């Protein structure tokens, strides 16, 4: 079967057409699943609203970088939604594997790269929609955005890379396990990554050494801090370089591993 796939892939339709077909399917599938989209939009907003009201007193701590907790906390919302998208990407592909669609796809000239790019396209689109919603709601609720109009495009670019990175992790899980349940089982791990970061307080204000250490080695902290810098500082080269660097590294590694895993599954 592997030979058939390779031969057909080489002589099939051009890669951009394959990607467009898969991306179109991914986007349509996304639109047709409001039950999957709505919670991933609402839940981060709920946590933002709760934290903004519940932790506003933390802005009175000496050294807190802003006097508005919502300005501080909104960055976390973007990352949370990107991490939720890990589940969406993985769940969709796992569903394709479970219901046999993936096996049928293997018999077509579809290239693995087109399959992955198509899955991730829907995710990037969802990420952009969520970013716009969070930005609008946050600003309407009183969050300040120090970076101005240009900063929004930087924010959108960073959110896209983060979505691809975490989406790639979801794809790896789906491809390796072929089970939607296993992908859902990753949720607690993702939640731990989120919470043991600098999401609720700046790292220099975390009193517990062990927690500050975990937040410092957790890459999610740097993603949050890059987005946070756009809201609070404006243009912080170091925070943005770290955020983009780590997001790109996660994206490259996850896509590389997902591609390798996909190749293995197609050969089975």
């Amino acid at each position: 079967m592997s030979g058939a796939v390779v031969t057909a892939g080489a002589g099939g339709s051009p890669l951009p057409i394959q990607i467009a077909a898969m991306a179109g399917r991914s986007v349509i599938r996304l639109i047709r699943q409001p039950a999957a989209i709505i919670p991933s939009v609402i839940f981060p907003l709920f946590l933002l609203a709760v934290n903004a009201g519940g932790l506003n007193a933390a802005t009175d701590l000496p050294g807190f970088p802003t006097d508005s907790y919502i300005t501080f906390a909104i960055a976390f919302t973007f990352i949370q939604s990107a991490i939720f998208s890990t589940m969406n990407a993985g769940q969709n592909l796992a569903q394709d594997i479970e219901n046999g669609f993936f096996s049928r796809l293997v018999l077509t000239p579809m290239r693995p790269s087109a399959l992955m790019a198509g899955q991730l396209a829907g995710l990037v689109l969802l990420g952009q929609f969520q970013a716009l919603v969070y930005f609008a709601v946050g600003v309407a609720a009183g969050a300040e955005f120090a970076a101005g109009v240009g900063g929004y495009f930087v924010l959108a670019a960073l959110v896209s890379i983060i979505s691809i990175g975490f989406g790639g992790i979801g794809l790896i899980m789906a491809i390796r396990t072929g089970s939607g349940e296993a992908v859902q089982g990753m949720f607690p791990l993702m939640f731990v990554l989120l919470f043991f970061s600098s999401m609720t307080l700046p790292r220099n204000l975390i009193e517990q050494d062990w927690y500050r250490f975990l937040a410092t080695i957790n890459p999610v902290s740097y993603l949050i801090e890059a987005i946070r810098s756009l809201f609070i500082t404006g243009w912080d080269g170091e925070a943005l370089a770290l955020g983009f660097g780590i997001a790109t590294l996660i994206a490259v590694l996850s896509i590389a591993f997902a591609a390798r895993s996909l190749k293995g599954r197609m050969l089975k």
Partner: protein
Amino acid sequence: MSFLNRAYFASAWAVAWRYLHNLYTKPAVFVPGLIFPLFFLAAFAGGLSSVGDVPGFDYYDFTAFQFCFVLIQASALAGVFVGFSIAGDFEMGMGRRMMLATSNRSAIVIGYAIGAALRLIVVWVIITGVSLLAGMGVRGDGFDIAGMYMLGLLANLAALFFSAGIALRFRSLQAGPLMQMPVFIILFLAPVYVPQELLTGWIEPVASVNPVTALLDGARSLIAGEPSGLLLAYGVAIGLIAVMAVWAMRGLRKAEVAG
């Protein structure tokens, strides 16, 4: 109350025993219920400890402050997890078999409630042990501490009857989010991170009418050794249990009608 006889309690105990046996022989089911409270305890008590230094935060110990939230949360979520088990049992057909084998079917719900309470003891022991190891100070005496755990048990019963009502109506694990999300939301609409006086914005009035706030305030006052607001806390808890018990029993009737 003629139904409260030996056969009734034998049925309830059989359901409880089966629930606990399944729970402790399947780590994938049991472990998340333990990990989540510990995770929240570490994230809140560890990561937010400097919030205890905020001007106006006059509670004696931040870890104890967060422990009470985690205690109530873990107790309520343990009730919700039982709802998942009920839904799973009915989805697999086990629920129907249990109904055929029980003369008074409320014993099924009571059995799950007994199982949930026994499960809860393990969760309490672990989160309390970890909190004490983390340096949590306890000022209340034995009577106060027993009162605090009693509030946790009442929160567990209320959440259990709520999720059982959903599980018995839908009889499918797909109703899981309907059981979990409302409980999760109502818990977080209480003063989780700081006392109610320090809440700002829309959450302040919401927290002031949220029944969970009364439970949290009661538990926090008990562990601090300065009991206050207990009449309200126990009244709210018992009221919630009464309403949710009716909800669960009506769900049971619907499950019976559906066969």
